């Protein structure tokens, strides 16, 4: 593996986006210069690009374990794939007016569903328990011939918690309901073999697995009824019109090939780094806890709630030391509301605002992890010294009564 560019920073925000692998950049470069042809053209310029796209499609197919390479539809991003999947299911089955999803989906699903509610669709949002888990019985009770599509994420972007999508897809299939999964966080981190599942549609995003931004895939099981989002050309067999983003498609193909090669690293070295980071922080910092389901989550993600302090302040102090992470606090999002995922799990506000997500990749090194384990405790201590919920030695007794600000 090529070592990443030598930067002083420690990048632990790989669920937000990843570094483009140097091999991926190298594979892409010819497609900006001599391989500039339009894959649709009859001449050699176009033909060579067409072959490269075909190869990339097979590389994606291999990573997903899809039965056919024609089941791979290239899109511009995960969000487009999500919208295409849900809107297609509604258009293709106009008599079905219901959608089943979960409260902890990415906004690419949630904002679309909320919008569809204003157009008369009924959306069922499955709740989660304190560890971010679904109640499958409740899900089964909602399945009916009124439901156009189920859309459930494979892995949660904030906590890393995995949903039993394969089991849920089987249940949907037996009820005659289409099943889509937003798998942008799972692809490349977990082995996936779609041909052995009942999943009808799956979204993936290139930039989450060391390919560039601006490229995504919708996996569309053969013979799934489909209505395109973009019409206009015959590209992607008419399922997604628009001239192919050939350089990025080639890059995504290469990234998928590399993800296959390194799949074992995820559950060995990446997981070992994540576990060491988490144990180190939990041992050194009082009043913090892991959110989500630690026994069933992505191997690269650790989301730790630091009580009585606020996440943006943590990130700013980490950033000063060159450490990049992210937070579920209101202030980091610009939305002025804490993470919907943390709220759905019933995490109290005093902890939800202090949730900090560390998401690793195979490009991290154990030395970096040790530096982060050293950096975090003094940062938390510094902010707690400022906090109205903290005394010299620990949280004030009965924090909710000790500090109850007006308009809380």
């Amino acid at each position, binding site marked *: 593996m090529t070592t990443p560019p030598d930067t002083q920073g420690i990048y632990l925000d790989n669920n937000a986006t990843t570094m483009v692998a140097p091999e991926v950049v190298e594979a892409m470069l010819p497609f900006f210069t001599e391989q500039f042809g339009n894959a649709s053209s009859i001449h050699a310029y176009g033909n060579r690009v067409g072959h490269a796209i075909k190869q990339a499609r097979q590389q994606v197919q291999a990573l997903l374990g899809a039965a056919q390479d024609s089941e791979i539809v290239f899109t511009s991003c995960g969000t487009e794939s999500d919208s295409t999947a849900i809107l297609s299911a509604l258009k293709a089955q106009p008599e079905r007016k219901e959608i089943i999803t979960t409260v902890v989906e990415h906004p690419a699903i949630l904002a679309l569903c909320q919008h569809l509610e204003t157009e008369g669709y009924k959306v069922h949002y499955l709740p989660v328990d304190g560890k971010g888990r679904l109640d499958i019985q409740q899900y089964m009770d909602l399945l009916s011939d009124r439901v156009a599509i189920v859309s459930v994420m494979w892995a949660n972007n904030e906590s890393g918690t995995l949903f039993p999508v394969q089991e849920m897809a089987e249940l949907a299939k037996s009820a005659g309901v289409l099943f889509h999964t937003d798998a942008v966080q799972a692809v490349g981190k977990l082995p996936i073999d779609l041909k052995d599942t009942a999943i009808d549609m799956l979204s993936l995003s290139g930039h989450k697995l060391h390919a560039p931004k601006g490229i995504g895939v919708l996996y569309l099981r053969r013979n799934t009824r489909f209505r395109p989002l973009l019409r206009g050309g015959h590209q992607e067999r008419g399922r997604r019109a628009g001239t192919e983003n050939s350089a990025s498609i080639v890059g995504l193909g290469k990234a998928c090939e590399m993800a296959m090669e390194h799949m074992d690293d995820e559950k060995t070295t990446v997981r070992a780094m994540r576990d060491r980071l988490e144990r180190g922080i939990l041992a050194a910092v009082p009043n913090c806890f892991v959110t989500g389901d630690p026994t069933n989550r992505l191997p690269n993600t650790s989301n730790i709630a630091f009580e009585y*302090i606020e*996440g*943006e*302040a943590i990130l700013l102090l980490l950033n000063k030391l060159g450490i990049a992470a992210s937070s579920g606090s*209101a*202030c980091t999002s610009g939305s*002025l509301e804490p993470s919907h995922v943390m709220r759905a799990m019933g995490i109290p506000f005093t902890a939800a605002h202090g949730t900090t997500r560390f998401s690793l990749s195979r490009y991290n090194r154990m030395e970096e992890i040790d530096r982060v384990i050293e950096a975090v405790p003094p940062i938390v201590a510094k902010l707690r010294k400022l906090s109205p919920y903290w005394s010299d030695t620990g949280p004030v007794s009965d924090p909710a009564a000790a500090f109850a*600000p*007006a308009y*809380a």
Partner: protein
Amino acid sequence: MWDYSEKVQEHFFNPRNAGAVADANATGDVGSLSCGDALRLTLKVDPQSEVILDAGFQTFGCGSAIASSSALTEIIKGMTLNEALEVTNQDIADYLDGLPAEKMHCSVMGREALQAAIANYRGEEWKDDHEEGALVCKCFAVDAVLIENTIRSNGLSTVEEVANYTKAGGGCSACHEGVEAILSRVLAEQGKAFDPYAKAPEAASPEGGRKLGNLERIRRIERSIEAIRPNLQRDHGDVELIDIDGKNVYVNMTGACVGCQMASTTLDGIQQRIVEDLGEFVRVLPAKAMRKSA
């Protein structure tokens, strides 16, 4: 990442007066835990002179909340309580060389903590006037409750009017869909339908649609500006009316307003005041903009 000024960063990394004042005789607790910002301000006030001898803060919040708390304590130390009550959230933001628009509420929280602490010292009850609505316009931090109330009380029917009255939707326009949804709902309650192509009524003024004569209009603009001047003069600035050209009102900012980076915010404030007084939309521009276009 937010675009924080050097001063904000400096006060965040090295906060002044952190922690509770040991022998405090005034405490103000404000903030919203759901929003993730809350502040306890403690003061030591001299009972004879009412001078703030010491101030300390404890803040649960983001970088700009901590910096605003730090700035507040620096500003008010040594002031009398009456002087301190004159401190505005804009003073706190100015002290920090400005805050990002979405973070202005951090400075508001600072001012409110101060009011609450002084009320606490004087044995009064402090009440906040917070709207508890979902944020619709992120550019100008306008929430759904304010928009809805403004639509109702002024009989608004278009997105343009809502922007003129509340500023919501006057920035990036991403919230126009949300504003339309509120308009549709409120109008439906009144048995009316929202028409997206309707023109804003010429004068949705308190005058009941009567168009002002030219002279009367100029006098009103003059009166609005006169009313604002004392506020600016307090900060050693001033404003004078230069010309009115249709919907454009040209002014000169003088004194401390010259070169102040909050000058454009001040212009917005003047504009809002004139729009409210006049009941029609005008644009307040610096006089140099007039020379450019001439």
